[in-house]
């Protein structure tokens, strides 16, 4: 295909980002709310895809980072009156520290045991926060900044995290680290033999994804105002991420974007019937895994060679 068509493809993401970024100008309040959720779920699915799609890490610990950041913000803003955005950043950093602590243990086990051990950490935090007087047990806490931000401000934070996560992961994949990651995705043993530092690549991915997930969780709870352990640390976050990535296409950049869009569309359309929307999402995931295990975008790429954001062009 010609050079022109390659170049022309760049307009597609450009126009989409522009449309998304100007949502508060042209859209109603509901459209802004929809785009906000889309940006947040986009960041979550991109960061999970970085783990599963490239490093082969089936991490179920992501709710731990969401909850930790959310609770850091709740504690800092309501007990100490710290600025909202400072507390968000501190929450993200705490998530990275916790991820670093987890990495002392979790990388000793492989494959499916990795899923269980990460799930254990997330669930242990759920139980501990539910039994901790300082954070009001399982009654939950309010995130009360001195100056509550408007929905437009929260939207732009979500926009930065959502679009930023796509840009960051795209940049990572085009870097030397990304080259190693793609080699690992294709064959870990071979990658190891050819000089890819597998452990270091995995650790970086885990820390980066913890940071993005933490920030996203923090913004989500800034918007929600109220945080409870059984919701913040819930495995249902992991399940949503899995479904979004699988439906869209594992190991692609476009896949999680589509997956996040489908999830938000479905959950908003069936907003009053949460269990029905989860049921449908689960059914779609099963159909996708049976019919097209590479997901919607992965299958399209394979059949048509169609890639919008390819990590491979010059």
């Amino acid at each position: 295909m010609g050079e022109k068509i390659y170049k022309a493809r760049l307009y597609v993401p450009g126009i989409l980002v522009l449309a998304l970024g100007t949502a508060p100008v042209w859209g109603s309040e509901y459209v802004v709310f929809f785009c906000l959720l889309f940006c947040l779920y986009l960041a979550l699915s991109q960061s999970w895809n970085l783990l599963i799609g490239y490093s082969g890490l089936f991490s179920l610990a992501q709710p731990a980072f969401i909850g930790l950041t959310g609770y850091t913000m709740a504690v800092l803003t309501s007990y100490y009156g710290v600025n909202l955005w400072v507390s968000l950043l501190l929450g993200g950093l705490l998530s990275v520290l916790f991820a670093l602590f987890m990495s002392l243990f979790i990388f000793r086990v492989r494959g499916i045991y990795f899923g269980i051990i990460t799930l254990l950490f997330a669930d242990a935090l759920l139980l501990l926060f539910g039994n901790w007087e300082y954070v009001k047990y399982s009654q939950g806490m309010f995130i009360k900044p001195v100056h509550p931000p408007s929905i437009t401000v929260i939207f732009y934070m979500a926009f930065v995290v959502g679009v930023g996560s796509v840009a960051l992961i795209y940049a990572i994949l085009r870097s030397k680290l990304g080259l190693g990651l793609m080699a690992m995705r294709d064959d870990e043993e071979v990658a190891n033999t050819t000089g890819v530092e597998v452990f270091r690549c995995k650790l970086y991915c885990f820390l980066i994804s913890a940071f993005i997930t933490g920030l996203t969780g923090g913004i989500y709870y800034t918007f929600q105002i109220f945080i409870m352990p059984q919701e913040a640390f819930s495995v249902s976050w992991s399940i949503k991420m899995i479904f979004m990535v699988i439906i869209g296409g594992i190991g692609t950049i476009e896949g999680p974007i589509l997956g996040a869009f489908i999830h938000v569309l479905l959950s908003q359309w069936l907003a009053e019937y949460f269990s029905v929307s989860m049921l449908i999402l689960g059914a779609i995931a099963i159909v996708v895994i049976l019919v097209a295990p590479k997901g919607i975008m992965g299958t399209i790429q394979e059949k048509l060679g169609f890639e919008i954001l390819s990590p491979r062009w010059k």
Partner: protein
Amino acid sequence: MVDLLQPILNGILLGGLYAVIAIGLSTIMGIVKIMNFAHGDLMILGSYLSLVLVSWLGANPFLTLLAVIPMMYIVGFSIQSFLLNRVLGKGLDPPLIAAFGLSIILQNSLLLIFTPDARTLMTALNVMKIPLTDYLNIPANYLLDFLIGIGVIFCLYYFFQNSYLGRAIRAASDDEGAAQLMGINTKNIYAKAMGIAMMTAGIAGVLVGMTFTFYPHTGSQFLFIAFGVAIIGGLGSMKGTLAAGIILAVSQLVGAHFLGPGYQMVSGHVVLLIVLLVKPQGIFGTV
């Protein structure tokens, strides 16, 4: 010290129940090499099946086992042959995701049908206690759980050692290719193995319903227990599963005794974490 005897005794008895909860998961992990994330929810499906029978027929929960066990066999057989067999051999993730999807579909279907209310399968045993000394007594339902647990494990052990199907299942698990050459239809064998695993899950579901309250989301809580027991005991090991059930239950209840009831599950998690790090193949090895 005398205070500690009651949680230890309860833990040992509860361990029998934990073993039944886990044995199906452990068998499937050992034989089909699938981590069935829907195991807890399938078990709770058994509880709800029993509940429906109890309220329709007014039967004793214990008698509903006669219907729940064959129904769960059909459920397990169908899940394996229509869903999980199709994603086998396609890497690590597809079976996991299929099981996750199944778990979410089950949880939310139960939620839609039965509402989130807490349920229980009432029997006269729920309030009965057998006093041993002034300080120590045996809760009758725990004792029943323990006895049935040992019975189930013993039957399963006998089945795998001595029946043709049991040996075929073990052969398919040891070397799929060789078993196929010997004329064993491995996919069909896996479906039967899942059916048997779900029979034990059905028994576990009825026992859990008779011992605790349950609601549509309880499955994931029991999934942790099943994972814990399966990993501590070593995959597919019958005696290991029984011992691990007791280890996990005692450590949970002793932990709860010292730290407060909120820490019951946390103590179990810590024990499981230690085993995973020190001896991931389980204390009692495999098969």
